[in-house]
Every structure is written in C-alpha cells, then in structure tokens.
C-alpha cells in the first residue's frame, strides 16, 4: 500500500464495479490477485485504473510525504500481505468519508482525518474498507443483481466515470453509493473483518465504536428531540450510503468486548502529532461549511484532547462569530479571549476580537486588536483592508 498520486472516488460503494457474474464475489481475494484483462472484471478494473490515473493530477490531493507515509504504515499493518495490492490517496475534501475501489484504490478524505481522535479510530475505518476489499463484497453485490434497470444504471454511471474525472463528482458518487450500497450483512462483515485486522495489528478495538459515536453526536448536534427522530441526512455523502451509525456503534462495541483485554494501541498522541500540521487547514475548510453546531462538537473534542491549546478556543470563536445570532458575539469574544489567555501571540484570535469590536462600533478597541493582529501576522491576506480600519 502506498499513499501516492492516483484517483478519486467513493469506492466504498463503487467496489461493486468489480462485479462479474459467477466470478466469485464474496470469496476472499488472494494477495497479488488481478483479474484477466479480457474478463468482465478485468474490464471494470480498467475503468478504475484510468480513473486512478486521473487522480494523480487532482488539485485536491494531499501529497505531504510524512502524512502519507504515516497513513500508509497504518494501512499496511492492517492489510498484511495484501498491502502491495492497495494504493491510498489522501484527498482534501471536508466531509467524512473513506473508500476502497475494486482495483485497490483507497481514498481517505480530510474530513475523516479531522474527526478521528486517535490512530486506532483511523485504523478502524481503514480496516473496514480493507474488509470490503478482502471479501470482494462488490463482486458479490453485482452477482446478486437481478434488476436490469439497476444494472443499466450502474453501467451508465460506470461509462460516465470512464469519461475522465467524473468519479470525483460528489452527486455522482452519492448516486453510485445508493445503487450499490452494500447490504447490512456486508457492512457488518466488513466491520468484523476490520475489527479483526485492528486487533491483529495491536489496536484497541473499542475505538471502532467510538468513531461512530462521534458521528452520531455531530449529526444530532443542535437538533431538538423531534428533529433527531425525524432527521434526514441525505445530503451527507456518508450517511446517504451507509447503515445507521447507532447500529454500527452498538454492534462494534459488543464485538470489541469479546476480544481479550490487555494493553492495546490507541495512539492518541502520535495521531494528534501527525494531524497537527494539517489541523488548521482542515478546520478552516470545516468552518467554511457554516455547519456551526456540528463544528462545535469537533471543537469540544479538540478542547478536551488539547488542554491549554489556544487554537480550539480560536475555532470556537470563529464558529460563534460566523453564526452571528443572539448572544453569539459575546460567546465569540469569550472564546477568543481564552485563546489569547492561552497564547497572547495568537494573531488570528486578535483578528476575531478586532472584528467583533468593529461590528459593535468600538473603533478604538478594534484598532488596538487589529494592530496586534497585523504585528503578529504581517503577511495577512486581508492586511490592506485591516490597515484601512486602523488608519495605518
């Protein structure tokens, strides 16, 4: 496995494209396996090989060598002898998703990296995707198709996908996911395989359940009880194509409890150390989505995991300043102030304070905060505008 330049797709569902009637879907795939080029399965793999070639040039690729090596090492510890058959790609997209294509192309989106709290949680997701690959679930799914219209729709999407780059089209990915959503049994089986791979690699299996609990928290953030009961998350790429996370979290917790205890890897410190260099980029991408309640869940987790760190308070301030309702300006000011308490040189927190003062017409206070911001971030992208505020 290597996380290098290749292609982008929601392969979790798209693994069905390996489908070949009577070709052995559901049977474990052998290490080093590749279908014959003149087989249906081989033709379908070729579609994804071309798509993967396009991914090499995606502007969304995260190509940092150290981060790619880190994720690759985790995936290889899980995949064992199948490691050389898979290729991983880190993709800058602020939504929770990871996927595996039938030809061994795995994607991990930055929105997932942001939400994992430790290495074991990332290993859980990677292990699940590897589980689909090892069990050839997509092929099995294709063999189960008896509906010509569904097959025709699938082929249409596959042909469109072969047109170049279309696999990166998110609505297309959701459509594909809906057509080829794995059965509950397959998802559970992949979870089970993933859990086993985690344990074999020394990871704490309970973390597989925890990541789903985190997603549930986010999904339900800011909703009333009635809204939670009536929630519809079709707009979410991940929830649109996967079983309810409550079921998954509960089942995974039960399965994890069946493994013997003992010292196992959680890897919180080393995960956070690796992710730290990209945390601000990922959080800025998250903040741009203006999904304030969900983002606050992420911020709260970050605050708990990083006591004394100024950044989570700054992000909290950004969320409230962006939401800009009711008491939000006060909440934002309090959060920025706590960021400053933790780090008086936090330039972006000073910027936030300046904006809040200016909104409220406190020009002198705004000027003081903005001047501090410009001192600390001399190459600020909004320097000219801020300078106009302070009369510099």
């Amino acid at each position, binding site marked *: 496995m290597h996380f290098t330049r290749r292609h982008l797709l929601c392969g979790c569902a798209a693994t069905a494209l390996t489908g070949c009637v009577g070709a052995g879907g559901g049977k474990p795939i052998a290490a080093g396996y590749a279908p014959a080029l003149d087989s249906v399965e081989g033709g379908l793999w070729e579609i994804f090989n071309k798509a993967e070639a396009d991914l090499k040039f995606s502007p969304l690729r995260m190509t940092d060598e150290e981060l790619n090596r880190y994720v690759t090492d985790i995936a290889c510890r899980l995949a064992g002898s199948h490691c050389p058959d898979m290729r991983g790609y880190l993709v800058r997209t602020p939504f929770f998703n990871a996927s595996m294509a039938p030809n061994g192309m795995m994607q991990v989106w930055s929105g997932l990296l942001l939400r994992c709290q430790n290495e074991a949680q990332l290993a859980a997701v990677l292990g699940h995707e590897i589980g689909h690959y090892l069990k050839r679930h997509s092929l099995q799914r294709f063999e189960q198709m008896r509906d010509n219209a569904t097959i025709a729709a699938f082929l249409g999407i596959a042909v469109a996908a072969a047109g170049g780059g279309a696999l990166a089209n998110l609505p297309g990915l959701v459509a594909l996911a809906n057509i080829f959503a794995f059965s509950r049994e397959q998802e559970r089986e992949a979870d089970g395989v993933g859990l086993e791979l985690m344990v074999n690699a020394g990871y704490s299996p309970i973390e597989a359940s925890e990541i789903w609990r985190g997603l549930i928290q986010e999904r339900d953030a800011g909703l009333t009880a009635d809204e939670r009961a009536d929630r519809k998350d079709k707009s979410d790429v991940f929830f649109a194509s996967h079983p309810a996370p409550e079921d998954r979290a509960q089942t995974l917790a039960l399965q994890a409890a069946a493994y013997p205890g003992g010292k196992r890897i959680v890897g919180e410190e080393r995960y956070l150390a690796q992710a730290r260099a990209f945390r601000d980029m990922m959080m800025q991408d998250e903040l741009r989505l203006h999904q304030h309640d969900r983002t606050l869940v992420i911020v709260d987790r970050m605050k708990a995991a990083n006591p004394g760190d100024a950044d989570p308070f700054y992000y909290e301030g950004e969320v409230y300043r962006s939401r800009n309702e009711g008491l939000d300006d006060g909440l934002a000011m309090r959060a920025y102030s706590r960021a400053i308490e933790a780090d008086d040189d936090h330039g972006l927190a000073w910027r936030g304070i300046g904006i809040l003062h200016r909104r409220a017409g406190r020009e002198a206070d705004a000027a003081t905060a903005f001047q501090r911001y410009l001192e600390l971030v001399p190459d600020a*992208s909004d320097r000219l505008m801020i300078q106009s505020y302070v009369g510099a």
Partner: protein
Amino acid sequence: MKIRNGMATLLLVFVLSACATYSKVDTGQRVPVGEGITVTAVGGWASISHQLISNTGADAIWTVDGPSINHLTFYSAIRSGEPMLVVPNSDVELPVWRTGMTEPDVMEFVEGSLAKANKLPFIETENLRPHTFLGQPGFAFEFNLVNQKQLEIRGLVIGTQAGGVLRMMTYTAPKLHFFAKDEASARAIAATAQLTGS
C-alpha cells in the same frame, strides 16, 4: 423583500449552458443589472435572459464563452437576513448577510455561501482590500475554488455595503487561461457601475 428562490449560481450555470438564450451587450452600452444599478459593457459579453436566471439569486448574469466557462454575476440588493444564494428543494441553510458586518465578515459570507451551496471540496479567499464600487467605499477580494468536477476556478468579488444593502459583482472563470482572458474587461465593467440617479 426580493424573492430569492433559486439555485446556486455555480450549479445553475451548467444547466443554463445547454438551453440559455443570450442577448449581446454592445460595448459602450449602459444597461441595468438589477435594482438601481447600471453598468457599461466593455468587451464581448452577452446577457442571459432574465427568465432563466430568475431562480439563481442573481439579478443579472453575463458571459463571454458560455456560463459554464465564465460569467459576471450581479447581486444588486441583498438585504439583512437574506442569503446570497438559495438551493431549491433543499433544507440546506445558507449563510445570510447582516447589516453591520465588517468586510472580513462579508468575505467569509461569500466564501461560505459558495462552499455550502455547491458542496465545494475546496475554496479559499485572498487579498481582501478596500475598493470603490458604485462610487462608495467598498471591498474587493479574489477566491480560488475546486468544484465537484475537480476543476480549478478563480473568482473576483467587488462590492459595497451601504444603506442596509449589500451590492456585489462577481467574475468567475477557470483558473487556467480563462480567468485572465476577461479579467481586465470584468474590472473595467465594475468601474463603470453606477447607482441609478447618481
């Protein structure tokens, strides 16, 4: 209050490209582009029919090579509590503009509107600066985005907030070749913008 029941511009232009009707806007011709704003055309722009853009949130959309390639979009009067864009048949809540926002707030409002309405994998804004628009103190900034087809797009936003109204013009085109091709023309058109009666 103006009704803004439409589709996000970036989404819509791809649909429009197949069926839009266009009217050439002659260079030197002063034309209205929404509520109380006129501009003088510079370059080979065509205006997309009002019927076709009535659900975009924009008041006028012009293009040179087709709306899926490049477009000038005019927002003549966004009022407090209103979004810049609206996605129809969706429960997606878009950011709204509010009186009293600072220019950095407005930049983030535009950024968030585009990101959320279009489910963009990536967008970043840059170079926020003072800029006179409609004869009033205003702002300008650029943005870079990657759309769902992984195409890199660049945009220029010029606007002003005054009298409880946000007025803006955006110029958007693929980063490679197309943005630079008509950028000067777009800036020149922005420089001609006037409030009716001013």
